[in-house]
C-alpha cells in the first residue's frame, strides 16, 4: 500500500476523478505550452462543453454535480486535430460525453471511454481530418501520471503490458530506439484511454486479452507499419477493445467457474474416495 492507494481506499469516486485529473495535468500543460493561442481557445471550449453537459445531467437527475468531464476534455485537448473548428469540437465532445458516459448514469456506470468516443466521432464526421500526434514532450509528461495511477491501482499493469507485447511483436525485429519511439507515440493513449479502469475488463485474463486485442486492432486497422501508430488508429483500437471487454470478462468468468468446479469435484473425491 502506498500513499495513493491509501488516499483512494478511504474515499469515493470523487477521489478517483481527482487522481485521474492530477495525472492529466502535465500532458495538458505541455500541450497548451507548445500550442498556439488557438489551442488555449480549444481547451476553454472543450472544458466548457463537458462541464455544461455534466451540469445539465446532474440537474436532470437531481444529483450532486460531479465534474467527471474534465478528464474527457483533457484527453480531447491533447489529441484534438489542429484544424478542427470550435463547433465541430463542441459537437464531438458533446456526443462523446453524452453517449459514452452520461446516458449510462455518469462516469463509472458505462463501459466506454468518453474521450475515445468523442475523438472517434470527430474523426468520422470530418473525413480527412487527422488527430494530433502527441510528441515526445507529451510522452514524458504522461509518465508521472502513469506512476500515480499505477500506484493507486487505477491502472492495471496487465492491459498496457499485453498491448505493448503485441505491438512490439507485430513490428518484427525492433531496435531499442525504434521500440522507444513506438512507446513515445503510444504512451499517452495507452495510459489514459486504453487502460481506463471504467472502460476495461475487470478480470485478470480479461485485461490481458483486452490489451492484446487493442494491439491486434492497431496492427489490423493501420494500413502499414508507419501508419499503425497514428492517433486515430490507437483511438479506434481502444474503442473496439473496450467494446470487447464485457465479452472477455464473461469468458474469463466461465473459465474461472469451470476451474473451480473441477477443483471442488476433485476435493470431494479426495474426501470421500
Amino acid at each position, binding site marked *: *500500500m502506498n500513499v495513493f*492507494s491509501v488516499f*483512494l*481506499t*478511504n*474515499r*469515493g*469516486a470523487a*477521489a*478517483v476523478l481527482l487522481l485521474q485529473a492530477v495525472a492529466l495535468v502535465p500532458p495538458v500543460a505541455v500541450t497548451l505550452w507548445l500550442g498556439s493561442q488557438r489551442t488555449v481557445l480549444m481547451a476553454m471550449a472543450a472544458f466548457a462543453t463537458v462541464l455544461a453537459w455534466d451540469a445539465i445531467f446532474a440537474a436532470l437527475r437531481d*444529483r*450532486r454535480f460531479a465534474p467527471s468531464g474534465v478528464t474527457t476534455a483533457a484527453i480531447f485537448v491533447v489529441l484534438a486535430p489542429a484544424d478542427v473548428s470550435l463547433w465541430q469540437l463542441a459537437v464531438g465532445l458533446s456526443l462523446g460525453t453524452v453517449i459514452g458516459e452520461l446516458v449510462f*448514469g*455518469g*462516469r*463509472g*456506470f458505462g463501459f466506454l471511454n468518453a474521450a475515445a468516443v468523442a475523438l472517434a466521432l470527430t474523426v468520422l464526421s470530418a473525413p480527412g481530418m487527422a488527430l494530433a500526434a502527441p510528441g515526445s514532450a507529451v510522452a514524458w509528461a504522461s509518465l508521472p501520471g502513469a506512476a500515480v495511477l499505477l500506484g*493507486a*491501482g*487505477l491502472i*492495471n499493469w496487465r492491459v498496457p503490458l499485453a498491448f505493448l507485447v503485441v505491438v512490439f511483436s507485430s513490428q518484427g525485429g525492433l531496435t531499442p530506439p525504434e521500440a522507444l519511439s513506438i512507446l513515445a507515440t503510444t504512451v499517452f493513449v495507452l495510459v489514459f484511454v486504453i487502460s481506463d*479502469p*471504467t472502460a*476495461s475488463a*475487470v*478480470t*485478470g485474463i480479461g485485461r490481458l486479452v483486452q490489451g492484446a486485442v487493442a494491439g491486434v486492432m492497431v496492427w489490423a486497422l493501420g494500413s502499414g507499419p508507419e501508419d499503425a501508430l497514428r492517433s486515430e488508429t490507437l483511438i479506434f483500437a481502444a474503442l473496439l477493445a473496450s467494446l470487447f471487454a464485457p465479452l472477455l*470478462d464473461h469468458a*474469463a*468468468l466461465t473459465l*474461472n*467457474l469451470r476451474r*473451480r468446479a473441477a*477443483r*471442488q469435484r476433485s*476435493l*470431494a473425491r479426495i*474426501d*470421500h474416495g
Partner: protein
Amino acid sequence: MSCEWVAMIRADRSHLVQTGAVPDQTADFTGLPTALSGLDFPGMRIRSEVAPGDAVAVGQVLFRDAKRPEIAFVSAIDGRVAQVTYGPRRTLSAVVVAPEAGLRRPASPPASASLISDRDPDAAGDLRNLLLARGLWPAFVARPFGGPPDPQARPDAIVVNAVAPSAGAPDPAGVLAGREADFSRGLRALTTLASGEVHVCLGPGTALWHGPIPRVRPHRLGRRRGWGRTGVQIHRLAPASLDHRVWGISYQDVAAIGRLVETGVYDPLRVVMVTVPAHGARRLVRVALGVGLRPLCALLPEAPDSSARLLSGSEVDGRATPWLGRHHDEITVLTRPARQVAAGQPIIPHSGLERVFPFDIPPVPLMRALTIGDIEQCQRLGCLEVLEDDVAGLSAICTSGTDYGRCLRSVLDQIRKDAA
C-alpha cells in the same frame, strides 16, 4: 507513564507477531457488560428465557433459537440482564448482561466425565447435546448461509482457524500456550462431528498439539496473502456449496470445547488484541465474549476520548458496534472520522478490491451482481462461499459505498428460502 507503556508495546510488537504473546502479558478485564448481538446471528428469531432484571450466572441459558430450540445461547458473565431488544420480525438485536457485584452465584452444572472416545458410537450424540445445551454450538459458523449450524447436520468438513488473521490479532501459539491439551481434546471432539476431515490452518513454526490425531489435517500457511480469514481458508481447502456443508471455528473456541468436555466448565473468556493504529500501540486483553467495547477501552491506559471510533474486528473490515463480535479477536480504535460516501456512486474497479478480497472469485462481477440483487449470477459466481465478514472489506473500500454485507445477506436468505 503512557509514553513508556506505548514504547514497551512497540518493542513488544515485533516479538508478538513473530513468536507469540507471553500469557502473563495478557491482562484480564472482568466486570464489564457483555451482550449477544444479532449481527453475529443475522435473521435469527429467538425465544428468550430471561427478562430484564433477572440475575444470571456464567453459562446460564439466556435464549434459544426459535426455529431450532436445541441451540442455547448462554451468558458470558455473572450479572443481571439489562435489556432484551428485538429487531424486525422479532429477530435478535441484543441481549445485554450487566455485571453486578455480590450476586450469589447459582450452583454451576455438575462436571461431566470426559465424553470423548473414538470407539464409542454414542459419543458424537452426547457431544452434540453437550455443546448445544452448554452454549458452545454458536461457536461454529456454517457455510453456506452462515449462523450456527443445524443441530443434526453433519458437515463435510470443519475448518479450524489457528492463524492470526491480521497483524492486529493475537498470536495463536501464545494464546494457547499451556492449553495444548484442551486444544487437542477439542480437535478430537470435532472429528466426531464431521463426516469428512477437520482441517486446521496453522502459522509457520507453530505446534499446537503433539502427535497426529486421526482425521485432523494440519495446513501450514506460511505467508500466503489473505489466508488468515476463515472464509478464505474454507474457500481454498473445502469450498462450500449447497451440497457441501462446511463449518468454521476459531482456535480459542476449540480450546473452550476441549475444556468443556474434560471438566464440564464453560469458558467464556477470549484473548483479544486492542490496536490503536494512529499510535501503533497494541494491547492483549482477556475478556468475556461479547464485551462492551467502550467500557473496555475506557479502562485501558491509552484510553481513547469518547470521539474515537471503536471497531470490532480489523481496521479494514471491522464492525462499528458497541459489542465485541462473537467470532472476532481484535478491536481497533480509530481516531479518523468515518468514511462518507454520497449515494449513487459507481463501482470503479481498482486493485485495492482484489487486495481485500483474496478469494479466487473476481470481486467486481460479484459486487455488481450483489448490488442489483441478481441471485442467479451471485450463485454462479460463488456467493454461497462467502459471508458478511468476507465482503466487509469490499464495503469499506469500494468507491460506491454500498453495504455488500447487507446485499449478500438478502441474496443468501433468498437462496436458502428457494432451496428449502
